[in-house]
């Protein structure tokens, strides 16, 4: 069998192990069936992640790799060996390294040859060597290399009998506790000599098998059972089917995100480097499709990797740019169900589109450095994700958390900058706008309580079944035009005057001062009732109750949890602000706008003012959504 098929069987063994480790219920019924399906899905995901780690480890162990390849080439199946590796590796993650150390230290190579022969002559028996291997006893466990193939002699026969004895999977008492260690059970190895202790991890005090090296005295070999094929019937197939070989390579590749430079270089050395590079190409292509890059371009990109010359050029570049590999590995990880924030999908798609249309970039040192720089910038942004989420309405967690893990530099120079950004301009700032009317800075940085979340959480409530009404406007020329205006309810302001407000589900009560209630409501809406802009209005108690009744008429309650917003607002209010100086773009003339600045407010807002409020109150009540603040 070929290498890919062997990897597939190794995945299957890990999957079966991980499934059993969850101790899913065996009884019938919908709930039990659901639990089994869940366990199978979880096991599939886990096994795919594990195979990546295992493949990387094997890749770094040339003797073990050669051994597995030879056994695979000389067999129709490596399932017994895969089962043994999966079981032992789960118990001892250093298994591959230990095995490699033993095999490489044996300069004569006889140890490897003996293990190889053992596996090729009877894989089930040979695989048990792996199961009982403790990192030191390999030689003692193996028959001599020079021995002829077993011809039904008593020694191996006994072990074979034990191994071939149907080994019923044991139902584990505790989920994930130590399930694999209980795969061996005295009852399950009845064919083994009764006096033979059964070495298991669960019973470490049990005497280890002691074989005289070279005697082939397998009669003394205990019968450590590996999961048998018979057990597989208890394991349902993965809900989404077994992963394709490309996904397994992808898992291995994704593991490079945290690998050292030397490990990356090793990964791209050896005869199979071309195959790996091709798999990387496929991985990138898959992710590009997910991001919306055109299928024809992706097909062309994949074709590029068929040419060995291109493969070699890419290999050379990847070996020379380990950070680039890590960046790509992160992309490979992103395909794993991580939701990419909407704000970054387009830039990512553009980046991917460039790469797909220019596969030569993968062989380009310049591009490698470019991509690393780009992702590094993104990583630094992650450091302010909390700020961004609260303040700007962007959730940067998820994808960037992963990227940060790979390029972790918490003391980056930007950290202080971003930490302080919340107070950007508070002590005074200098502005050079190309268009003074647009007030970009105010829209971004003023008044954090006007978060996007609040606005998005609002939706106008229909009044008399509709959101708008028509109004006839007479122009100066006498011409009458009809315009749509949002329906409003008339309520009392804090001063007792009537004020028209748009009722909205999700409108918020943001402050209470005595009998005065400050509410955040829409000041402009779209045709579908979503909110364009917001405003704050001060109402008296009656006004507030009237507004609340209208706003909640659609069945959605107003947001009256004012604690957080109020705290933010108070903090902002209490802060001393420095001057804002605007520089005229052509002349360079400066105009100082002292803070707080009186905003230009609508008549409705003026009517809604809280009596005795300061200019700062009014400014903060406008903030992000409601336009100019007198710049």
């Amino acid at each position, binding site marked *: 069998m070929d290498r890919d098929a062997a990897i597939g069987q190794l995945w299957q063994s890990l999957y079966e192990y991980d499934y059993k480790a969850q101790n899913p219920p065996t009884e019938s019924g919908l709930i039990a069936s659901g639990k089994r399906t869940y366990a199978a899905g979880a096991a599939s995901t886990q096994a795919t992640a594990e195979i990546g780690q295992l493949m990387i480890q094997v890749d770094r162990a040339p003797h073990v790799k050669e051994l597995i390849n030879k056994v695979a080439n000389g067999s129709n199946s490596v399932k017994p060996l895969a089962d043994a590796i999966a079981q032992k590796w789960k118990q001892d993650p250093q298994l591959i390294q230990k095995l490699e150390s033993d095999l490489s230290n044996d300069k004569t190579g006889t140890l490897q040859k003996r293990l190889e022969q053992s596996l090729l002559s009877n894989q089930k028996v040979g695989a048990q060597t792996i199961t009982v291997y403790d990192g030191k006893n390999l030689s003692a466990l193996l028959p001599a290399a020079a021995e002829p193939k077993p011809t039904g002699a008593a020694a191996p026969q006994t072990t074979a009998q034990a191994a071939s004895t149907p080994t019923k999977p044991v139902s584990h008492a505790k989920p994930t506790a130590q399930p694999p260690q209980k795969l061996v059970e005295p009852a399950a190895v009845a064919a083994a000599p009764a006096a033979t202790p059964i070495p298991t991890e669960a019973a470490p005090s049990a005497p280890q098998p002691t074989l005289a090296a070279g005697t082939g005295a397998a009669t003394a070999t205990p019968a450590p059972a590996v999961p048998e094929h018979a057990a597989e019937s208890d394991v349902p197939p993965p809900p989404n089917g077994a992963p394709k070989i490309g996904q397994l390579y992808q898992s291995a590749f994704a593991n490079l995100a945290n690998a050292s430079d030397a490990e990356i270089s090793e990964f791209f050395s050896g005869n199979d480097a071309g195959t790996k590079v091709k798999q990387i190409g496929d991985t990138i292509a898959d992710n590009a499709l997910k991001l919306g890059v055109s299928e024809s371009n992706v097909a062309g990109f994949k074709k590029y990797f068929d040419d060995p010359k291109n493969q070699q050029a890419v290999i050379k570049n990847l070996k020379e740019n380990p950070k680039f590999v890590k960046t790509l590995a992160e992309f490979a990880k992103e395909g794993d169900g991580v939701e990419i924030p909407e704000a970054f999908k387009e830039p990512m798609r553009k980046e991917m589109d460039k790469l797909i249309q220019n596969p030569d970039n993968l062989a380009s040192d310049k591009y490698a450095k470019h991509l690393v720089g780009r992702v590094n910038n993104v990583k*630094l942004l992650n450091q302010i994700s909390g700020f961004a989420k609260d303040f700007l309405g962007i959730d940067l967690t998820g994808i960037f958390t992963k990227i940060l893990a790979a390029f972790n530099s918490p003391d980056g120079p930007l950290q202080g900058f971003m930490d302080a950004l919340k107070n950007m301009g508070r002590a005074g700032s200098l502005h050079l706008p190309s268009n003074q009317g647009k007030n970009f800075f105010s829209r971004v940085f003023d008044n954090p309580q006007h978060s996007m979340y609040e606005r998005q959480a609002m939706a106008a409530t229909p009044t008399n079944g509709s959101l708008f009404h028509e109004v006839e406007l007479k122009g100066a020329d006498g011409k009458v035009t009809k315009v749509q205006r949002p329906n409003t309810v008339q309520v009392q302001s804090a001063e007792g005057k009537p004020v028209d407000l748009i009722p909205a589900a999700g409108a918020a009560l943001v402050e209470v001062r005595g009998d005065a209630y400050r509410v955040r409501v829409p000041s402009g809406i779209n045709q579908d009732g979503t909110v364009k802009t917001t405003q704050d209005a001060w109402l008296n108690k009656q006004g507030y109750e009237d507004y609340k009744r209208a706003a909640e008429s659609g069945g959605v309650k107003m947001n009256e949890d004012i604690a957080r917003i109020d705290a933010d607002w108070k903090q902002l209010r209490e802060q001393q602000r420095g001057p804002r100086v605007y520089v005229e773009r052509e002349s360079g003339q400066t105009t100082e706008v002292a803070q707080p600045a009186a905003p230009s407010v609508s008549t409705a807002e003026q009517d809604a003012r809280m009596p005795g409020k300061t200019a700062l109150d009014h400014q903060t009540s406008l903030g992000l959504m409601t336009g100019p603040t007198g710049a």
Partner: protein
Amino acid sequence: MAVIDLDDDLDILGEARKAKDGDKYVIPPDAPVLPSIISNGRDAELVVDVDSRAVLIFDKPLPEPIEWVEYDIDLSILTFVTYEGKVQGLGMKVHKPFRRYLGRSEQILLVHLGEDDKVKEFYPAKLVVRHIGL
């Protein structure tokens, strides 16, 4: 003494110059220079505060992501360099009052603000400050 009106003198180079005056300079499509940031209807606001924190907010996406920014104090200009190696000017003179603060900045936060007031993208770019003293 007669006054010579030089404008009436023979202008043997005039034709060539006239022809040049009529030409409109067009940036070739493959030139490594992009139209300035405040062009094509894109507005921007450069802000720097007393602690030299700098932000550039713009309302339409830039054609290419910016890798670093150069502030030439002598020429009072900001030049943005993209990852593709192209350059893009701000399109506004960075007047003298900015020198004290921007000259001490180390990076500029680039913020793309959408029409709906959503911040579409933002990322920091390193700032290189040049002051030869011309």
